[in-house]
């Protein structure tokens, strides 16, 4: 074949960049984000792991103490001390916070109508999510106030109360969670509203022909289609539950006598609060929190990986 030796004469010489831009371009685009992220997120995670093996008051030299911090946590757990309370409360948070999902769904179903002004209603229902948790916490503290809170005013009308939600070690966590559920429910509601928008109307019609009505339609036909929305609602709710800090800090400061602490708050208290500055110990708590979260992160990544493989 003569053509095999045909010279490449008409292809112009190109610069290194031009020849390799498809290979290098992604790295160029990624570089700033990766640098920032590695520096401020990835690297500190490992630093925290490391720090949890030290005792350090944030002022002097850090002292290597091996697993002593974890040992202390273990004993705190056995003795049902602060760490135990925090862990227990975190689990309560995880479970109770998930109520935002059915509640959000319920409100979304309620609002999924076309009457005049419904858009405004939807926005107003969404409102709590936009407001800072600091403000939400403040508002709910007043709401619960044992002396003048409207909760007790209302309870008074029906001859109940007064109750001191935030002053009672058994109710305080639930009281704070309820405050947290308020914005979180709004969040789930929006997710479901958009989800409902995307529900295939023909499937609903098929369901109607099949004789599915009301709850059975919801359960058998609509909910399965809302699975993506439910998944996201689940993820954001779990994350929200494990990150809960602002509300506790504002509403009770962990009290009364530490009974509303969660890991995230406890570690802040241990590491950075007035009476704290046990940095290593705080890091150890963070590592435990991280381990719990890791279960969910892995689940999330795994399901994303499955999606990608499709």
């Amino acid at each position, binding site marked *: 074949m003569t053509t095999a030796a045909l010279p490449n004469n008409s292809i112009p010489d190109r610069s290194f960049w031009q020849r390799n831009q498809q290979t290098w371009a992604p790295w160029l685009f990624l570089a700033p984000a990766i640098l920032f992220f590695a520096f401020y997120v990835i690297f500190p995670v490992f630093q925290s792991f490391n720090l949890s093996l030290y005792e350090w*008051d*944030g*002022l*002097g030299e850090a002292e290597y103490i091996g697993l002593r911090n974890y040992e*202390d946590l273990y004993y705190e757990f056995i*003795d049902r*001390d602060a760490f135990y309370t925090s862990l227990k409360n975190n689990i309560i948070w995880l479970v109770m916070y998930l109520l935002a999902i059915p509640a959000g769904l319920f409100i979304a179903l309620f609002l999924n109508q076309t009457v005049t002004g419904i858009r405004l209603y939807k926005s107003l229902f969404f409102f709590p999510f936009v407001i800072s948790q600091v403000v939400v916490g403040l508002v709910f503290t007043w709401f619960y*106030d*044992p*002396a003048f809170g409207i909760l007790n005013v209302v309870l008074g009308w029906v001859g109940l109360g007064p109750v*001191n939600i*935030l*002053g009672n*070690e058994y109710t305080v966590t639930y009281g704070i969670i309820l405050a947290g559920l308020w914005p979180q429910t709004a969040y789930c509601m929006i997710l479901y509203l958009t989800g409902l928008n995307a529900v295939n109307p023909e499937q609903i019609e098929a369901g109607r022909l099949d004789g599915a009505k009301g709850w059975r339609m919801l359960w058998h036909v609509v909910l399965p289609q809302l699975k993506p929305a439910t998944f996201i609602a689940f993820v954001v709710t779990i994350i929200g539950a494990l990150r809960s800090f602002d509300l506790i800090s504002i509403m*009770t*400061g962990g*009290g*009364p*006598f*530490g009974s509303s602490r969660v890991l995230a708050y406890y570690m802040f208290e241990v590491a*950075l*609060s*007035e*009476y*704290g*500055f*046990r940095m290593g110990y705080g890091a150890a708590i963070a590592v435990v929190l991280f381990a719990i979260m890791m279960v969910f992160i892995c689940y999330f990544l795994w399901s994303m990986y499955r999606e990608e493989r499709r």
Partner: protein
Amino acid sequence: DGHALSGDLKIFLDTSNPAPRAAMEASIARFGEQHPDLNIETTVIDREAYKTQIRNFLTADAPDVATWYAANRMRPYVEAGLFEDVSDLWQEPEIAENLASTKGAMTIDGKQWGVPYTYYQWGVYYREDIFKELGLSEPTNWEEEKANCAKIVASGRACYTIGTKFLWTAGGWFDYLNMRTNGFDFHMQLLQGDASWESEEVRATFANWRELIDMGGFLENHQTYSWQEALPFMVNGEAAAYLMGNFAVAPLREAGLSDDQIDFYQFPAINPDVELAEDAPTDTFHIPANAANKDAARAFLRHVVSAEEQTIINAGDALGQLPVNAQSSVDDDEFLNQGFEMLSSNSPGGVAQFFDRDAPAEMAKVAMEGFQEFMVKPDNLDRILSKLERARGRIYE
């Protein structure tokens, strides 16, 4: 001052309540007038937030002058080398002579690390009119105290208002009950980790405390209030008294109580065998080791402890507290007079700073949380004490 001061002077204050804030800002303004070339920047930080932030700004972004507290409370920073040694100031006759009584509280390792600018008595502030109405008089011993309280409770009021949300108010109660029950020395031993929380002495203290709790002496739901939020109960007459520092007087007056309605008495004796001792927390000024303008900072410290300045800032309508300078005059205020009198003549047992200033921070936190729990659930005492004892084992090691 030999030369004119210039440059920037950064001052951090924790006097975030309106009256003290105004008093301190006025004092700084007077200092500024004397030094027109000095560019003074004052930052007032919320008192509670300040306590956590001090570590940060001492290490990172240090001001030139910062408020803090005396005694054990300044120890971590002294040990970490974050406070400037100001022993030189204490050599100056003006300070050496006039502030001698507070020198001990400012001394660690034989050096002085700051200057005090105010101190104040603790004690029981009560509603004189209610006492009159019920025919009560100031108690001097525990029996009278309880009898009074019983009558107050019977009238549908709480004897004591208190807000323990931020815990330390309960620490004040413990201080007094323990000092009255076991004496100053035992109290100090306990706080220094040298006595057991599960000892008989401590239990006796709590037993006394419990008597008041059981009779309904304390405001309900105190665990949800800050100390300020507990004030209105006294103002409204739902509670008759408040164990508090003298800084409570200003807000009480502001809220509309006249001096005819408020009065003060020393916490009554419980165990006649121990000498009376008092809490008198001292608030201080320090120069961070990383300060930029230490000359100006020293000048400011001199300014703030000077006799006339002390008189002004501690006046009843300002801080409303006691001056640290022996040359200053105590404002002619019934509470300040009584307090000054009490501290200088009727506190033979000794003068403590305050629970969370005398005990290490970590211990203070755990203990005060225990006090709060005890006040809500007195039945948990055994559990609480064993927890405190465990904490003692860990913290003082």
